[in-house]
């Protein structure tokens, strides 16, 4: 019985299996029928269309590069635009003797040594480039002359191209950045992002500044043309065309007028200035001096100009506002006072007697004022910038408490601004020292090191954007918004406008009375303290703090040439300020490298910028003039300092 049932079972299984074989066979037939229908569709129904596409002429797909999006300031003033011009391009693969061709081209159009060296540089940098420009921006006459001689130059063609132009030249150059030829590295990055196909017709890419950080927005979508080409590779006619879609326009929070005023105020001095709207994080002005002319880069910079920029001791290509790190000096004190109040280490009434130094471990930490400031309470400590008060305070608080509190204000951390190349700076702490140094005796944190942290010296080192962000956060009563330059992005095709909403990074819990106290003390600085010389007669309220930062390394570098030390290792001048005190609309930091006392060099710049922001008041006369007088004032400061 069992055998029989097993056998029947087996037969049943075989039947089910064969049923499935049948199903599979049917699926195969259905799939092949689908293929057959497709073949009939292609080879019978649409045969004529495909035959004409394939016959004799091959079809080439020619990419059409999209127009790059514009960059505009908050009032719609164009900061980066495009214009069309003719270029003379060499297709290296189609030219037998490059040198001779270039030589002969020189007889027809003006080819200078600069053009040649730039071409050679491009040729070496960009392998397998389809074509490279030997001359850009041809005149109409040159175009006509080349056209008449075209038969002599196989593999050389005139192309109409769009060029990037920066109408403001070196103004805001570190914000806007520049574009340059796509090189090997860029290509690899594009391949990684899987957007290489969209760059088939594109030769240029953002290399720095907003041009780089918003590259994908600005670029647009490449169009293409299906072109019939004959055996010689010449286009006969266009079969189909999909237009390119221009890149998106980016409108900034930056005010180019304010920017101009700020840059003019710096004159020839080196330094940085960042102004932020505290309620949103929008950057109103962003200065890094010296700048450079980004227009030099758009055709591929010639080696001589590149060497000049790259080798200058002023380092004009460094974006000081986000990549320069400076000790904050006394601008650190308002935050120290804030920390002391919040952590209960001091009250608003706490006072000391300042003999002009603070003694710790047998060492005297000197106050910048000889003989001291006498009786100093918390308010006065900010207004007159007492060092002794803060030596003592730092020692009382301890490094962990300081680092913990300052971290919340963004010190020592990238601000997250929409630019590439931001530095972190250093918020000193025992953990940081442990990581930073190798040798055990260097890794240890010494209590004496905490003392100078209190006045913004020691290992303290922050970027200007961090100092501005901290000021904005304090001005906004503890609300920290990520700094950003872009306000909104317009898609021209759809008309869609994408606003970049203020991004609240954190809300620092601060007691209102403490915030109010520190702000009042900072207002005191500008009324009756170290900022009074620059701000005493201002028609609006403001709260500021001066700072003078010793240039690190001066003591170790004593062997250096004295004259050089005197020039480059002079103190940096800093000033932080917000205005108006009641409901701040601007918070800024100004830093003048080697500018001496904060009150002398940086504070007047801040005043000029605030005057324009608050009152719309331009510096006396034209913009160029106050730049001169400020430079003179700076020189005077320098003299005083070196004495």
């Amino acid at each position: 019985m069992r055998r029989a049932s097993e056998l029947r079972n087996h037969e049943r299984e075989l039947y089910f299996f064969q049923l499935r074989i049948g199903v599979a066979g049917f699926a195969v037939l259905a799939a092949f029928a689908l293929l057959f229908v497709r073949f009939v569709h292609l080879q019978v129904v649409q045969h004529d269309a495909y035959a004409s596409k394939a016959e004799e002429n091959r079809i080439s797909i020619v990419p059409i590069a999209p127009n790059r999006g514009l960059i505009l300031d908050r009032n719609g003033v164009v900061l980066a635009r495009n214009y069309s011009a003719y270029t003379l391009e060499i297709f290296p693969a189609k030219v037998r003797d490059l040198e001779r061709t270039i030589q002969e081209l020189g007889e027809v159009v003006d080819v200078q040594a600069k053009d040649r060296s730039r071409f050679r540089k491009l040729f070496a940098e960009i392998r397998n480039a389809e074509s490279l420009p030997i001359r850009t921006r041809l005149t109409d006459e040159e175009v006509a002359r080349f056209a008449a001689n075209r038969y002599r130059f196989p593999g050389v063609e005139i192309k109409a191209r769009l060029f990037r132009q920066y109408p403001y030249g070196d103004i805001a150059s570190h914000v806007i950045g520049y574009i340059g030829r796509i090189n090997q590295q860029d290509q690899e990055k594009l391949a990684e992002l899987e957007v290489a196909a969209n760059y088939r017709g594109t030769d240029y890419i953002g290399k720095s500044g907003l041009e780089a950080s918003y590259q994908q927005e600005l670029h647009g979508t490449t169009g293409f043309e299906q072109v019939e080409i004959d055996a010689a590779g010449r286009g006969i006619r266009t079969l189909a065309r999909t237009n390119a879609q221009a890149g998106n326009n980016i409108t900034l929070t930056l005010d180019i007028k304010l920017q101009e005023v700020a840059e003019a105020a710096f004159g020839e001095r080196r330094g940085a200035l960042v102004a932020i709207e505290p309620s949103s994080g929008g950057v109103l002005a962003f200065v890094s001096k010296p700048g450079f002319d980004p227009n030099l880069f758009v055709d591929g910079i010639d080696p001589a100009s590149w060497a000049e920029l790259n080798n200058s001791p002023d380092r004009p290509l460094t974006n000081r506002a986000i990549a320069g790190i400076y000790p904050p000096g006394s601008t650190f004190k308002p935050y120290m006072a804030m920390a002391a109040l919040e952590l209960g280490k001091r009250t608003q009434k706490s006072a000391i007697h300042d003999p002009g130094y603070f003694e710790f471990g047998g060492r005297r930490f000197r106050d910048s004022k000889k003989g001291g400031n006498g009786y100093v309470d918390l308010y006065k400590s900010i207004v007159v910038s007492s060092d002794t008060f803060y030596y003592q305070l730092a020692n009382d608080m301890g490094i962990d408490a300081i680092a913990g509190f300052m971290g919340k204000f963004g010190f020592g951390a990238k601000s997250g601004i929409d630019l590439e190349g931001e530095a972190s700076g250093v918020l000193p702490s025992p953990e940081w020292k442990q990581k930073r140094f190798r040798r055990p005796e260097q890794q240890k944190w010494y209590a004496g090191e905490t003392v100078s942290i209190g006045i913004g010296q020691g290992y303290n080192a922050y970027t200007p954007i961090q100092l501005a962000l901290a000021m904005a956060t304090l001005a906004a009563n503890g609300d920290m918004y990520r700094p950003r330059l872009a306000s909104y992005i317009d898609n021209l095709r759809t008309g869609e406008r994408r606003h970049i909403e203020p991004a609240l990074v954190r809300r620092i819990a601060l007691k209102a009375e403490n915030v109010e106290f520190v702000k009042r003390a900072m207002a005191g600085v500008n009324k009756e303290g170290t900022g009074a010389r620059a701000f005493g007669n201002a028609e609006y309220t403001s709260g500021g703090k001066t700072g003078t930062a010793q240039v690190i390394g001066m003591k170790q570098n004593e062997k250096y040439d004295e004259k050089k030390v005197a020039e480059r290792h002079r103190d940096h001048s800093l000033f932080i300020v917000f205005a108006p005190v009641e409901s701040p609309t601007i918070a800024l930091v100004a830093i003048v490298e080697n500018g001496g006392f904060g009150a002398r060099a940086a504070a007047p710049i801040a005043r000029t910028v605030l005057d324009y922001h608050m009152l719309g008041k331009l510096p006396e006369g034209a913009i160029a003039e106050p730049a001169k007088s400020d430079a003179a004032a700076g020189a005077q400061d320098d003299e005083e300092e070196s004495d």
Partner: protein
Amino acid sequence: MQLAPFSARRIVQRLTSGIDGPLLALSLALVVLGLATLFSASYEQPARVTAQVSNLLVALAAMWLVARVPPQTLMRFALPAYLIGIALLVAVALAGDVVNGARRWLHVGVARFQPSEMMKLALPLMLAWYFHKNESTLRLRDFAVAALLLALPVLLIARQPDLGTAVLVAAAGFYAIFFAGIGWKILAALGVLGLASLLPLWGLLHDYQRRRILTLIDPTQDPLGAGYHTIQSTIAVGSGGITGKGWLHGTQTHTDFIFAVFSEEFGLIGNVVLLTIYALLIARGLMIAANAATFFARLLAATITLMFFTYAFVNMGMVSGILPVVGVPLPFVSYGGTALLTLFIGIGILMSVRSHRQLVQT
């Protein structure tokens, strides 16, 4: 003197025992069409034709050997082949050569080979063996185990990345599970579940990943990048017309898309001939499976046959622009030694199943 012709016939009989005439004839017909097309397409690389001929000789020898091995013996190879295959895939992931951005090749002494190719046969063997072992007690749990056995190599191959081979291996595993008798309801449920999981998955993808998938579906979206080949091959197929442009009169020189060349030169008529040969080959394979002696042999034969189908359908579908472009060769026609070897070993297995179908019953 009279013995000589007699023994010669015996020798021939001996040598051809186990060889299935129809299978051999059909697969060789495909190879001949492939060589002719290859010759036409590769006038710049004539060495490819001679290389393919020597590949063919190796593949035929392998087929002949495998055809003589009874399925019971093949069964013993299942587990080792699978485990070695997995080990090699892991080795590739750790130390393989990168060619064109994908890590697929492994150096073995002087030669390089792709372990993923081996998996195309090792996985059907493994699953057929696994189901055969548990034949009398097949439950849902067994199908779940089979799915895991399937997922491991597929994920390893997909990570290389080699989407084409991963799809083929996954399909092979699916066929084995299907023929092993997974319930229709479960199958339908899995299908619905699969489709439903696509939606949230889509939401997790990056913009550029979505764009890439959309390009797979509609190549005209990206004519400068991935869509280029499909547009070109569709034009080639379409321009072939009903009768084709004639042998050696095509314009295509891409040996990767050999079906485009074939289709352009031989037209709709050629395509129908090709489809018919594949249909006959598949019919023969399914017949062999239906009459096989053991559960193992049935599953193996049916799975391998449907793999031939998958190869052919995916390749022709992608060249004619109805399926996304993935690296799947046209079976027996495309250039390539490893693929040819795998395919003819598959034919050898089918032959073995056919010639040993009575063993158990007697």
